[in-house]
């Protein structure tokens, strides 16, 4: 039979159940299952915060790479020349320019191309 527990126990468990809202099946309502699910969820959240930074950067790079390819240059050449020209725009902004201000991005690509040819000429001298 189910006996009433102490007040402290319910308060302690309520904190876990607050974390398991929306979980599937008994993991949201049964304490033994819920603590395991809650701890795993917290671990996933910890890891996810670090992965999010990586994922967004790789998304931005993919977008810049595609936009640069449209301007007939590889991503590596584009970014290398941005660095050489000391353009302080980061990948996030460059990807947003590529989407919302394509002409500006085209101008940056032309800039990168000119810097690339100048660098080539300097190397040949």
């Amino acid at each position: 039979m189910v006996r009433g527990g102490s007040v402290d126990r319910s308060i302690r468990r309520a904190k876990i159940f607050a974390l398991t809202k929306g979980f599937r099946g008994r993991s949201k309502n049964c304490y033994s299952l819920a603590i395991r699910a809650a701890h795993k969820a917290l671990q996933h959240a910890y890891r996810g915060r670090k992965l999010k930074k990586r994922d967004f950067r790789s998304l931005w790079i993919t977008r810049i790479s595609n936009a640069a390819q449209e301007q007939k240059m590889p991503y590596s050449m584009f970014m290398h020349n941005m660095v050489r020209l000391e353009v302080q725009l980061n990948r996030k902004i460059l990807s947003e320019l590529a989407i919302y201000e394509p002409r500006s991005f085209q101008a940056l690509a032309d800039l990168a191309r000119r810097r690339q040819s100048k660098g080539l000429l300097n190397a040949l001298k």
Partner: protein
Amino acid sequence: MASTRLTVLTQFVKGRYICQLQRITLRYCNKGGSSRGLREYINSNAVDFAQKNPQVVVYVRPRPYRHPSIIAEFLNGKHKAISVKNLSRAEINNKVEQLRNSSGITRKKMKRWWHTDSPSIQGVWTPFDSLPYKNY
């Protein structure tokens, strides 16, 4: 990109400030101990609040044998009920001022802390931008 939550909030900044609180109902019990603060508030501060804020309609409802609460109704139709059980007069004053200053928008985590009506000036990218030959 534009954020819909912030679009609603910017409405208040655009023109003249309008107090978003429409009605406030103070529900108290004549005898209960938890209502003491609210009773004191009604006797002292409620009239001042009503006079200072003519745009807000203040209702006072006695509700016997129940804990006291305040219900706020906003111009966008949202209701907000807060329990003022065992709060002091000063705390209730703070709560009422808080309601007076708030909009009726439900609190929610901001996804984007900026808003723009014109996300793109040059026009959003289309696949046809960089094609060499226009045959469409």
